[in-house]
C-alpha cells in the first residue's frame, strides 16, 4: 500500500501548494486592487481612524486629530474654524475638501516622501502617524483680512487674497460666507449629513472657496493689465506719456447709448491726459481706446502672461481658470479694456497681477503648502517657482509709479499707509444686469519699491452697503498690508 500512500502525500502537497499560491495572490499580488475597491470600508475606516497629521499656520495647528474614545479613535478638530475653513476644507468619512483633500497623501502618511518616518514608526512599533502640512499663511494677515471683510456686515460675500510677490507664497486667503468644518468632521454622521445638505443648498455657497473658485468681472482693476499691454506694445513709454481720453467714447461699430463709454463723472480730458492721470481717475474712455489700440491678440497675450486661461495652483484642488476671451471684435476689446464684457478673474488671479508688477514683472507660481513635515524632521520645503515674465522691468516700474499715484492722489486713496509707499487700484464692475449692485474690487501692494505683500479684495455682495471698490475694499487691503509690514 506504500505506493498509493506516496501518491496521496504528493496529492496533499499539491493541495497545500495551491492554498499557498492562492493566499499569496490575494495578500500580495491583488492586495492593492482589493484595498482600492469601493466596497472596502475596512481601508476607508482605517484611514479615518488613524492619527492624521496636523495642518499648521505659523506654529499653531489649525486642524489636528485629537484622540477620542469611540470606534474611530481620532476626531479631526479645527481651531478658528470659520477663519481657515476655505483653505483647510473639511475631513469627513468618505469625503473631504481643501488642503485635507489635496494633501491627503501627506496627512494620512501615505506620501512616499514620508517613507523614512514610516520606517522609523514601523521599527519602533509606534502606530503610524501622518505627516503635517505647514501652510504659507500669515495668521495676522489672515485675521486682518477676515475681520475686515466680516465687518462689512451680515450676508457679506467676498474674498481676500494676499501674496508675497517675490515667492508666490499665499499669505492670506479668506472667503465669506464660510462654514465650520468641525460640524462636517463629526462622528455623528446623521448630523453631518444634515449639515452638509444645508450647506449645499445655501444660496450664498458657503462651501465655495471664492478666492480660487469664483470668477467675476474684474472691472477697473483690469485696467492695470490693459496699461501693461499698452506699455509693452512700445507705443507708450512712461507714466507721463499722453494717452487718449475724453468724457465719452463711442465704441467702434456701435451707435447710441449702449456703445457709449463714459467715466461716471470723473474728469478725463480729451487732450493732454497722461497715463498717470488716467489711472488716478480710472478713465474708462482711456483704457477702452488703449485696448483697441493693442488689439484682441495683444490683450489676450498680455492677460495670459499674467495667468489668465490657465491652471497654476497645485496645492488646492478646484482652482477655476480666469478668462480672457479670444478673437474679440473691436467694441468687445474696448469693453474688455476696463474689465467688462466677458473678462473674468478670480481674486487669486488679480492678486497675482498686482504681485507680478511688484516683483518687477515676474509672475511667481502661487503656493500655500510651505513645508511637509513628519515628527521631528522636515520632509520637504516647497521651492518658489517662476511661472512667467508678464512684463518688462521698465513696464513694471512705470506701472508701479502710476499705481502709487493712484493711491496718493486718485481713487485708491483709502489704502494709504503712513510712511509707506503703497501702489493700488480700485475696481467697481457692473454685473450687466440692470438694478443689481456692482462688484467691488481692490488690488494693491506695498512697499511700492520692494513689495512684501500684494493683496486683492473682492466683494460680491454686501447687503446694506453701497459697493464701491475703493471705499469698501481699500481699508481691508490696507489692514492686510499693515499686518504683513509690521
Amino acid at each position, binding site marked *: *500500500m506504500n505506493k498509493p500512500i506516496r501518491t496521496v502525500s504528493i496529492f496533499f502537497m499539491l493541495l*497545500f501548494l*495551491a492554498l*499557498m499560491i492562492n493566499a499569496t495572490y*490575494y495578500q500580495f499580488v491583488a492586495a492593492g486592487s482589493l*484595498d482600492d475597491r469601493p466596497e472596502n470600508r475596512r481601508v476607508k475606516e482605517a484611514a479615518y481612524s488613524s492619527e492624521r497629521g496636523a495642518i499648521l499656520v505659523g506654529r499653531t495647528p489649525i486642524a489636528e486629530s485629537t484622540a477620542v474614545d469611540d470606534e474611530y479613535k481620532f476626531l479631526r478638530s479645527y481651531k478658528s474654524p470659520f477663519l481657515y475653513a476655505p483653505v483647510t476644507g473639511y475631513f469627513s468619512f468618505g469625503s473631504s475638501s481643501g488642503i485635507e483633500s489635496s494633501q491627503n497623501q501627506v496627512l494620512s502618511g501615505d506620501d512616499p516622501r514620508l517613507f523614512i518616518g514610516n520606517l522609523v514608526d514601523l521599527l519602533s512599533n509606534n502606530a503610524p502617524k501622518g505627516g503635517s502640512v505647514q501652510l504659507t499663511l500669515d495668521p495676522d494677515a489672515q485675521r486682518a483680512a477676515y475681520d475686515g471683510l466680516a465687518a462689512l456686515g451680515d450676508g457679506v460675500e467676498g474674498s481676500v487674497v494676499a501674496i508675497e510677490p517675490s515667492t508666490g507664497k499665499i499669505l492670506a486667503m479668506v472667503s465669506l460666507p464660510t462654514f465650520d468644518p468641525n460640524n462636517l468632521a463629526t462622528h455623528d454622521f446623521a448630523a453631518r449629513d444634515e449639515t452638509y445638505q444645508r450647506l449645499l443648498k445655501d444660496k450664498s455657497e458657503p462651501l465655495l472657496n471664492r478666492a480660487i473658485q469664483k470668477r467675476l468681472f474684474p472691472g477697473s482693476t483690469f485696467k492695470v493689465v490693459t496699461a501693461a499691454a499698452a506699455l509693452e506694445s512700445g507705443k507708450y513709454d512712461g507714466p507721463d506719456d499722453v494717452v487718449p481720453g475724453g468724457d465719452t467714447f463711442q465704441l467702434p461699430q456701435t451707435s447710441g447709448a449702449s456703445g457709449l463709454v463714459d467715466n461716471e463723472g470723473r474728469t478725463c480730458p480729451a487732450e493732454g491726459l497722461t497715463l498717470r492721470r488716467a489711472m488716478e481717475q480710472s478713465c474708462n474712455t482711456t483704457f477702452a481706446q488703449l485696448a483697441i489700440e493693442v488689439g484682441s491678440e495683444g490683450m489676450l497675450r498680455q492677460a495670459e502672461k499674467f495667468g489668465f486661461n490657465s491652471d497654476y495652483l497645485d496645492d488646492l484642488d478646484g482652482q477655476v481658470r480666469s478668462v480672457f476671451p479670444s478673437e474679440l471684435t473691436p467694441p468687445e476689446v474696448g469693453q474688455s479694456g476696463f474689465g467688462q464684457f466677458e473678462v473674468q478673474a478670480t481674486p487669486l488671479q488679480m492678486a497675482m497681477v498686482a504681485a507680478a508688477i511688484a516683483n518687477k514683472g515676474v509672475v511667481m507660481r502661487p503656493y500655500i503648502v510651505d513645508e511637509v513635515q513628519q515628527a521631528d524632521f522636515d520632509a520637504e520645503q516647497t521651492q518658489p517657482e517662476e511661472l512667467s515674465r508678464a512684463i518688462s522691468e521698465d513696464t513694471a516700474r512705470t506701472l508701479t509709479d502710476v499705481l502709487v499715484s493712484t493711491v496718493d492722489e486718485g481713487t485708491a486713496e483709502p489704502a494709504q499707509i503712513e510712511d509707506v509707499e503703497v501702489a493700488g487700484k480700485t475696481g467697481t464692475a457692473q454685473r450687466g444686469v440692470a438694478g443689481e449692485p456692482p462688484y467691488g474690487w481692490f488690488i494693491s501692494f506695498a512697499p511700492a519699491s520692494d513689495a512684501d505683500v500684494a493683496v486683492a479684495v473682492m466683494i460680491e455682495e454686501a447687503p446694506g452697503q453701497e459697493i464701491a471698490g475703493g471705499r469698501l475694499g481699500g481699508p481691508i487691503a490696507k489692514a492686510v498690508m499693515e499686518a504683513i509690514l509690521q
Partner: protein
Amino acid sequence: MSPGAPAPQAGSSVLMGFVHRRRRGAELFLLVLALAVGVGGYAAVGLGVQGKVPPDIIGYGGWLAALMVGAHVVVRLVAPYADPVLLPVVAALNGLGLAVIHRIDLTEQTDFARQQLTWMTLGVVLFAGTLVLLRDHRVLARFTYTCGLLAIVLLLLPMAPVVGRTINGARIWINVGPFSFQPGEVAKVLLVVAFAGYLVLHRDALALAGRRVLFVDLPRGRDLGPIVAMWLVSLGILVFQKDLGSSLLFFGLFLLMLYVATERPGWLVVGALLFSAGAVAGYHLFGHVRVRVDTWLHPFEYYNNPDGADSFQLVEGLFGLAYGGLIGRGFGDGDPTRVPYAESDFIMASIGEELGLTGIIAVLLLYGIVVERALRTALISRDGFGKLMATGLASIFGLQLFVVVGGVTRLIPLTGLTTSFLSYGGSSLVASWVIVALLLRISDQARRPVPGLEPVDETAQAEEATQVIKVGRS
C-alpha cells in the same frame, strides 16, 4: 522495553536491522517552542489590543504548560516510540488558535477563548485517555461494523426532532445538556476506523477483479456497492443537513482510503465521476449549493446582496487578507471582526489580516507537517489496518484544511468546516485531539522495535503471512 536492538536476523524484514529512536527529548524541546507560540501569542494580543500584557498571563501560561507537559508525560509513559513532531505541532496550532480567539474576544466582548481552553483541556484529557486505554490500535479492527453503525447513527442524530438543532442553516448539531455538539466530528473518526477495517478485509476483492479500459483498471460492477453507498451517504448529508463541507470531506476521505487499500487509480476515476455528477446535480437541484457556487464565482456582485445570496463574509474576508498584506497589521491593528465568524470558520482570515501572508504560510506549513507526519506513519506502519487508519486520519486533516482554507481564500466554493485546532468549536477540537492520539498510537506501534526472535509474536506472524501474499501481486 529495552531500546537496544536485537541482533539482525537474516531473512527477516528489512526493518529488523533499524530501530527508531524514541526522541522524547526532542518532543519536549519542540513543546517548549509550541508553548512559546501559545503564551507569546497571548501576550502579543494583550500588548497589541490593550497595550499591556494580560494580567492572567501567568495563570494562562501555566495552564497551557501543564496541559502540554501532561500530554508529553503520558506519551513518554505509554507511547514512548510515538512520532515526536506531531504533538508539538498541534499544540502550537492550538495555542495560536487560542490567542487569535482571545484577540477576537477583546473586540467582541465575548468569552470564547476561555471556553476553548476548557475544550482544549477536555481534548488533552481524552488524548491521554485514548493513549492509556488503547495500547494497540489493531484492537479497533474488531469494532469495524460497530463503528460504522455508530457513525451513521451520529450522522443521523441531528435530524432527530428533539435533540437536533439547526445553526446557521446547517442541521449538524445536537443538544447535550447545556451544550451543542456536532456529532459529525466524532463520526468522521469512527468512519475512518470503519473504512480501514472494511477495506483491509476486502481490498483484494476490490483490487483484483475488474477490466481494463483505456489504461485504467475499472472495478467490477458488483464491487461498486460500498462506494455507491458512501456516495449516497454523502449526498444525504448534503441534501438533508445542507452541510456541503462534511459531505465533501466524507466522500473524499472514503475515496482516498479506497485508493490506498486497492492501489487502483480506477477507483479515483469512478469516484471523481460520481462526485462530479453529484456536484452538477446539486448545483441544479439545491438552492444552497447554487448560492455557494455563484457567490464564489462572482463575489463582488453578491456583496451585501439583500435577497439571499450574500457574499459579504467571503468578500470581507478577502479584504481582510489584502489589508494584512505580507506581514500583517499586527494584533489589534486590523479589523478582523468585520468578518462574521472571525473566531471559527473564518479564523484564517483573521490570521491573514493581523499576521499577514507570513502567518498564513506558517500555519499552512504546520498543517503540512501534521499531514506529512501522519502519512509517514502510514508508510512505516507494519499492518494494513494501521496504514489505512493513518492515511484516513491524515486525509481528514488535509482535506478539511483544504476545504475550509480554500473556501475562505476563494480557491473553491465556501463551505462550513472548522480549521482543526485553530477554530473556536469544542466538538472539532476534542475530536482533533483524539485523532492525534490515534496517530501517535499507530506511530508508536510502527516505530517500536520488533520484539525479539523467540517467541515470534502471533500478530507479527500474521503480518508476515499477509506480506507473502502481497509479494506475489506486486
